[in-house]
């Protein structure tokens, strides 16, 4: 995986456990007229690649396949790709538009359409023959990708799936979120003085396959992907349902798919962007599904920013680590809990207590919501 902590899952988990905040002023592109200009960049990674979001995904997929012990094309026959992105192709788009306006030749790597370029890049790089789809649920895209992977494996439509999300920062993205007045110089999820989100970039790819396949080759599953659910707010294009109706329905659908009662879940990875309305909505939704103050909850966006379509996949990696015995990382940026969020049992220090089942929830523009349930392998 790729995050503002650098390349690799170990850097990601270590950074979260140490509570390191990776938010800095923008360096990679001109930001003199962008306010706020504080983001979590994945510096020094694929800097010269025109399809940087695709390059992030390739790095993440290579790491995931190596971890799974899948080193040859024969081992990944029947491969499918579900790679979500919100605006990951906009780096290519910006470069193309600049060339057009300048009357210069278009950049070399325009052979794909921005929305699915990273997914097709993975498919070609690793020899996919199964479904290759870019789910587009805005900031819930990475979570939706893992939901698709679960569906394809369950229905026998693929033997192994590279599933996750990727997104990158560019002027197109930062200026847009700034125009929405959704951004801040630092993110404080569920805090009473939170001002908004901080954008980030990165990618996470997980290898999803039937447990029997993993065991047959002598490998060890890291976690079980037990359930997935999705639901629409059906209320507003940019603002969340104030009551968290869609988020609650997605979480309930994921629990039903997993065959679990809410009381069996020990930990919820919240979307937790640090915006006023998202966090209040989520607090209501989580309390409605799990009861007030019962389940442990965190958000990692105060540390690595909101990585948009990649966020759900990064958070799924954290959940997989947690159910495998890792500690729950703290909610970085939380100082004083908002009274509107008091129904949440927020993790504020590294929490080593074991977790058998974790739920990860994501929400996005256009009222998109998706959730996953992961369990100990």
């Amino acid at each position, binding site marked *: 995986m790729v995050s503002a902590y650098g390349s690799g899952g170990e850097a990601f988990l270590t950074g979260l456990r140490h509570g390191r905040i990776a938010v800095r002023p923008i360096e990679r592109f001109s930001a003199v*007229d962008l*306010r706020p200009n504080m983001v979590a960049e994945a510096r020094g990674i694929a800097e010269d690649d025109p399809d940087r979001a695709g390059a992030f995904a390739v790095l993440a997929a290579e790491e995931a396949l190596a971890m799974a012990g899948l080193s040859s094309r024969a081992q990944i026959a*029947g491969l*499918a*790709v579900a790679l979500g992105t919100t605006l990951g192709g*906009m780096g290519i*788009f910006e470069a193309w*538009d600049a060339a*057009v306006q300048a009357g210069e030749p278009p950049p070399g790597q*325009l*052979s794909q*359409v*921005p*929305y*699915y370029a990273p*997914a*097709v890049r993975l*498919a*070609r790089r690793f020899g*996919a*023959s*199964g*479904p*290759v*789809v*870019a*789910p*587009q*649920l*805005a900031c819930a895209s990475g979570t939706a990708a893992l939901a*698709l992977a679960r*569906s394809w494996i369950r229905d*026998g*439509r693929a033997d192994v799936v590279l599933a996750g999300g990727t997104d990158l920062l560019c*002027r*197109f993205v930062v*200026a*847009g979120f*700034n*125009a*929405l007045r959704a951004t801040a110089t630092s993110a404080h999820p569920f805090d009473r003085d939170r001002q908004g989100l901080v954008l980030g970039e990165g990618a996470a790819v997980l290898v999803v396959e039937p447990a029997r396949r993993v065991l047959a080759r002598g490998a060890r599953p890291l976690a079980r992907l037990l359930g997935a659910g*999705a*639901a*629409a*707010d*059906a*209320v*507003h*294009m940019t603002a969340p349902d104030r009551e968290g*109706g*869609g988020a609650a*329905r997605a979480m309930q*659908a994921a629990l*039903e*798919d997993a065959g679990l009662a809410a009381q069996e879940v020990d930990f919820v990875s919240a979307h937790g962007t640090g915006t006023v309305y998202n966090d209040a909505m989520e607090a209501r939704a989580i309390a409605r599904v799990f009861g007030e103050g019962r389940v442990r909850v965190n958000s990692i966006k105060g540390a690595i920013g909101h990585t948009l379509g990649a966020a759900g996949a990064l958070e799924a990696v954290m959940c997989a680590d947690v159910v495998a015995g890792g500690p729950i990382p703290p909610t970085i940026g939380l100082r004083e809990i908002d009274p509107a969020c008091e129904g949440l049992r927020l993790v504020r220090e590294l929490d080593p207590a074991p977790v058998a089942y974790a739920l990860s929830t994501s929400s*996005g*523009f*256009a*009222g*998109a919501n998706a959730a996953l349930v992961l369990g100990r392998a």
Partner: protein
Amino acid sequence: MSLQGPADEIVVTGMASVAGPDLEGALERLPGAIRARAVRAERVTQLALTAADAALRGAGITGRDGGPDPRLGIVLGTAFGCLLTNALHQRRLAETGPGGVSPRTFAATVSNAATGEITIAYGLGGAALTVTAGLVSGLAAVAEGRALMASGGLAALLAGGADAWGAPLARWLGDAGLAEAIVPGEGAAFVVLERRRDAVARGARPLACLEVAATGFEAESRETPRLLPDWGGQAIEGAPVFPGLGERALVAALQWLASAAGGTRCIVRDRCPTGQVAAVAWRREEAG
């Protein structure tokens, strides 16, 4: 009405398409409140909303009555989604700087904007997915919609595709070397999917059965996409095959299903120049 097939079969109870030249008239036919939303939306959303409205009305599903209905869902496929809106946002940013950027335009730069508008207009509170799989996105949406319906939890689901045409897209495709692979055009098409027993129970008439839907990837170009591995033992002999692009392939199927052409089955299949392939097999229901 009696069951004419397995109760769990996924059937089509409504279907509609809107082509670009017919959009203005289709917008006029939208109910007032939805038309008011649609006229402010970007073109791909207008196409999707008008086709969705006609498909839902054909199925006898009239839209929201109270809060969002968690039993209703949608899967929309789009190849170029909001590229026209992306271009508009990018031009404003380049020409006026961040201060000139419109928050409303930026909010519509995500590919799921059309899906979101449809969920709001009709109160679809269940699963709402947008998928991009190149020029087979519409067929891929039908495949994912069929899987969602088969997994239970939803009573009905809109599945289909939408894309809009414009100068920035034409320029992009030319620069990407894809222009020759794509005939310019735009439109949207949707089917309403239900389980046969649910459709019959509410008195809706199944128009067709969605027998098989599959997607895959072929890195190397082939003139005709192969039948897919998970086509299984259900190969359909003698059925007409409609190759096509995106929602156009879906439109071809819908036109055939609505026609009096011979035979009871058809297959729609296609391959995107970037490698994605999809195939969907339909069986026309006998009238009465």
